[in-house]
């Protein structure tokens, strides 16, 4: 498992990274490398150049900004897991980050990488979708924000342009009640199906691995909003999802799990 030949450049600032990216249209951002490098080793990704943003200190932070928490894109899963601010204000993110892979993955992988990768099987994107987070991107033409609902476009495809860098993720405070149901075989594994449910006045439910992108359990959310009990709401949870089959689970079993896990999450929310 050797990647094909590529160039490597290390950026020390966001501006420098943007310039480096613009130099070569086949280049890619390297953050923790825990999704990108496996793809390159399988030669499923063959970028001509990697722009390493891993040492840009200014991209790693968690801070309060009004009624939002701003998280630097380079914040490692481990730092999300243990951030006192997040544990207090957006505890769901800390919990979700704390169950990604194993400790070595959590010390290297970044929230920005996980989000920019846009994998429907990943945990944090589903949580960000449920929270209604906002992504902040910077590119040659400046800075823009993208709502989570508009960010995840397709299989490993996001609203980021190739020359843009995801710099910050903003999550609203107030969702202090949450439930996280990750169904996997071993502690270190990806979810076969996962459910992230958060509640303030309303209840939002995000799905992990129920389609090519992270999804919302819209039908179930509507039933909850209309006053249905967990059982009734969960019965329609898999509507609108498009899970695929793999060696761990068939489509029907995934749908079944989705309903069971949504019910459990709703019961947990109380």
């Amino acid at each position, binding site marked *: *498992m*050797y990647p094909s030949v590529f160039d490597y450049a290390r950026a020390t600032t966001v501006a420098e990274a943007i310039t480096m990216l613009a130099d070569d249209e086949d280049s890619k951002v390297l953050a923790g490398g825990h999704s990108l490098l496996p793809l390159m080793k399988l030669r499923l990704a063959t970028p001509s150049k990697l722009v390493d943003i891993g040492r840009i200190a200014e991209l790693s932070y968690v801070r309060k900004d009004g009624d939002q928490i701003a998280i630097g894109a380079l914040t490692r899963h481990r730092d999300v897991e243990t951030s006192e601010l997040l544990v207090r204000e957006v505890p769901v993110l800390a919990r979700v980050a704390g169950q990604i892979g194993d400790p070595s993955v959590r010390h290297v992988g970044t929230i920005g990488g996980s989000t920019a990768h846009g994998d429907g099987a990943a945990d944090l994107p589903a949580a960000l979708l449920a929270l209604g987070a906002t992504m902040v991107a910077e590119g040659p033409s400046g800075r823009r924000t993208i709502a989570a609902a508009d960010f995840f476009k397709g299989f490993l495809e996001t609203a980021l342009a190739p020359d843009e860098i995801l710099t910050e993720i903003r999550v609203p405070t107030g969702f202090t009640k949450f439930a996280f149901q990750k169904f996997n075989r071993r502690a*270190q*594994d990806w979810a076969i199906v996962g459910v992230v449910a958060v509640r303030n006045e309303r209840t939002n439910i995000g799905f992990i691995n129920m389609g090519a992108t992270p999804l919302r359990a819209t039908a179930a959310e509507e039933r909850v909003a209309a006053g249905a009990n967990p059982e009734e709401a969960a019965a329609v949870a898999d509507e609108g999802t498009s899970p695929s089959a793999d*060696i761990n689970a068939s489509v029907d079993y995934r749908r079944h*799990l989705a309903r*069971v896990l949504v019910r459990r999450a709703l019961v947990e929310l109380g």
Partner: protein
Amino acid sequence: MTMTDPTQQEHIIGKRRVRREDPKLLSGENRFADDLVVPGALHLVLVRSPHAHARIRRIDVGAAQSMPGVVGVYTAQDLQAEWAGPMPCAWPVTPDMKSPTHYPLAGEFVHYAGEGVAAVVARSQVEAVDAAGAVIVEYEELAPVLDLEDAVRDAALAHEELESNASFVWTLEPNSEAVDAAFRDAAVTISERYVQQRLIPAAMEPRAMVVVPSPMGGDFTVYSSTQIPHVLRVMLALTAGIPETKLRVVAPSVGGGFGSKLDVYAEELLCLALARRLRQPVRFTEERGEGTMATIHGRGQVQYMELAADADGKVRGIRVKLLADMGAYLQLVTPGVPLLGAFLYHGVYDVGAYSFTCTGLFTNKTPTDAYRGAGRPEATYAIERAMDSLARKLEMDPAELRRRNFIAAEKFPYESVAGLVFDSGSYQENLTKALDAADYGQLRAEQQQRRAAGSPRRLGIGVSCYVEMCGLAPSRVLASLNYGAGGWEAATVRILPTSKVQVVTGTAPHGQGHETSWSMIVADKLGISPDDVEVLHSDTSIAPYGMDTYGSRSLSVGGTAVYLATERVIEKAMKIAAHQMEVAEEDLEYVGAAFRVKGSPEQQLPLAAIAFEAFTAHNLPDGVEPNLEASISWDPPNFTFPNGTHIAVVEVDEETGRVELVRYIAVDDCGNQINPLIVEGQIHGGITQGVAQALYEEALYDGSGQLLNASLADYLVPSACEVPSFELASTVTPSPTNPLGVKGVGEAGTIGSAPAVINAVVDALSDLGITNCPMPATPERVYQLIQQAKSE
């Protein structure tokens, strides 16, 4: 040498002692084969078949050959002259066993996905990988044989050169009339089919090797991540046609094997032959994703298990028919693996009528071979699952049914119907201890409560009692099984001039802690500190004789050899001491690292003084040679028979099918324990590997013979997170087979655990009418079983 006060001589054997191997391992100081820096070494990469079964139409190496860094690209044809013989199989189990042509690279046909088709040698690994990608191979795909029950019908053939997929049929029918009678007269019979799925050994260190030639001297040093440096040397010599004297094999630090490195691999032969041809070192390190296809698999059997019993549960007869998956080729001991279980399908029970038949079958999958337990986990699984079925049929408690059938403690040594002599054991005691530790009655009560309350978290309790045969092996018995080697072990013990002790063992540890244990055996016997004992191994120049490490043989055979060599050293030292002290040998005793006159302990001479005398040789008795050293090759008179009872407690989530192992109780009898810490470590790992088979692992193939879970992201090896904290206890019935009274413990955990877990899963679901659950009990599989049972 640290002297101990003779009156306070401490026993070292039997005390927990931290492994001396661990600091080096944990700090990364150990050097594995791939860590060895060999200047100028060339890199071997194989082009592997993507097809399970195909004819090779054409191989075009032209483009690859002109790639940067490439030294050569070779096909089977190019290398044919290198081989003095085919890839070795040392265990022709029957005189008419069929074995297809097997060379390091495929010739006209490929027979499994992952088989080597061409060898690329380049100056760097990256260049070799790139060049391998540029080799063009045209295949004509052929129908693969994948399923054992298809294979036995010969509808399609795995090998075009053979008339049948059957390699051999091996039977053990000591009393077939009695078997017929038992089934004719039985009040109840059980007839079940179990599948032993294929497992991927997944040692932490992948296979790696480097062959360093000395072109002017004509000799070769082979560094390989192997369990069998000695066997490998013989086999490489024979297969590559190199005099044994010109071959040195070294197994550097080896990161686990579980049987997968008990083999002679194509890449070892290729590195050797190419190093000879190119007159340069050649190295190979497998990638995980190719190792899962190119390193042997374990298990792979379909078992048809029948029991005949009286109405009170006494088992009268057992009939076993096995289909055993050889995979595409016979590797070193492939055909013998099911036979290691052939004698044990009656388990710990006193059963008079027995018959066993095994058909070894070729398929177009990775070859199988020995994997932790080799044959005995399969046997234990079949009998222990069947005993639970019998208990259900008789509506009897499974523990009680077992109790009624045990071989009684008074019957040891016990001559089994299959022709073995079980050395020692107390099966009742194992069971009683385990049931007490588990609080079995309470668990059953809780199970009833949950059932009554309709709880979706179902409780299941699984009992498994096992006995296994290990300590391979009495050489004469191996001869009767047609095995191509002996089962002895060699050891040398030397007391050096400074009275430090050097032990040379023929075993080849790769995680078992022999350095610690052997030093304890010697130190205990000599009355010195284990820290003064060095243990050398795994290099044929240092330890020229040895039969290596597998089959839980190292302690009972190799440890015994070390013990006996120590005894001989003391005998020799005694002669010198008697001479020096001018007394008769009979008047001396050896206590606390000194020879002293019986009855007048103040008259004594320390061993250290004798060691120095032996070295200077200034004043030795006539006929006594200088130096304090003894060598021995010990052939055990019998196998050893570790045994035990394991109890698994599981919770099955009825809604998702997820099985959680909540408690695990194991009572094991491995005879006397040298180092209980190492015993526990082996049992922990062993149990986890059995749990892996029960709940997690399976080599999955699609209909075209592609391995679907070739990476460790998809092939689920469980870790400490997936198992509870084990509750261990032991019984001790010293084995009379060896002076240490030890049995093996390397495989016991794996042998006992898979049936305990699956019995627990089935037990949790039995009120739904479920009687079987295939391994691994994955969430979806268990969920489907529940759904099906509920809809019926």
